[in-house]
């Protein structure tokens, strides 16, 4: 019987305390943070190295912003789930991210239980999409 594999997560946020928090959140959900990036460029490099299942991507980052990184990540992989993280969910940015291939968009100010549920729901929906081939 195949052993259940942990969901491998790449976390990209320029703020170390946010990375620490999100890492603890996804860790408590049984996921494994395989890499942490402080900007978009680093996220792309680490994506190539680690091939994660899920990328949690901040939008406002130095060197390369999250939307540019999102576009490049989606060009490299159709299978990876990408969730954008934002402090202020401006409607035009949310729509831009979803149009560029983000699976979902999460506000960082969500209560912990909601944050977990949203990540879980996004992952399950992504798996369903992959199975149905959409």
């Amino acid at each position, binding site marked *: 019987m195949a052993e259940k594999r942990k969901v491998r997560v790449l976390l990209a946020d320029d703020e170390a305390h946010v990375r620490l928090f999100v890492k603890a959140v996804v860790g408590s959900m049984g996921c494994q943070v395989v890499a942490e990036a402080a900007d978009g460029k680093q996220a792309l490099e680490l994506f190539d190295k680690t091939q994660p299942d899920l990328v949690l991507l901040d939008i406002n980052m130095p060197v390369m912003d999250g939307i540019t990184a999102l576009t490049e990540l989606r060009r490299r992989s159709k299978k990876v789930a990408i969730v954008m993280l934002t402090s*202020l*969910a*401006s*409607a*035009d940015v*949310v*729509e831009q991210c*979803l*149009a560029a*291939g983000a*699976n*979902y*968009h*999460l*506000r960082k100010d*969500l209560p912990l239980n*909601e944050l977990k549920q*949203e990540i879980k729901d996004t992952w399950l*929906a992504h798996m369903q*999409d992959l199975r149905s081939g*959409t």
Partner: protein
Amino acid sequence: MIKYDLAKMLEEIRRDESGGKGTDQPKKVMTQEEIRALARNRRRKPAGDKPPEAK
């Protein structure tokens, strides 16, 4: 001595950057519920979908 009205200059710059439409319209900030609804809508109708071409 030339006096500059910095507030007025700033307003003009903002107007120019927004294509002359002014900047008084606040950007809409979405709640998580609104984002969820938008994402669900997109899942049902993927971005790549195009309406059938008229013959």
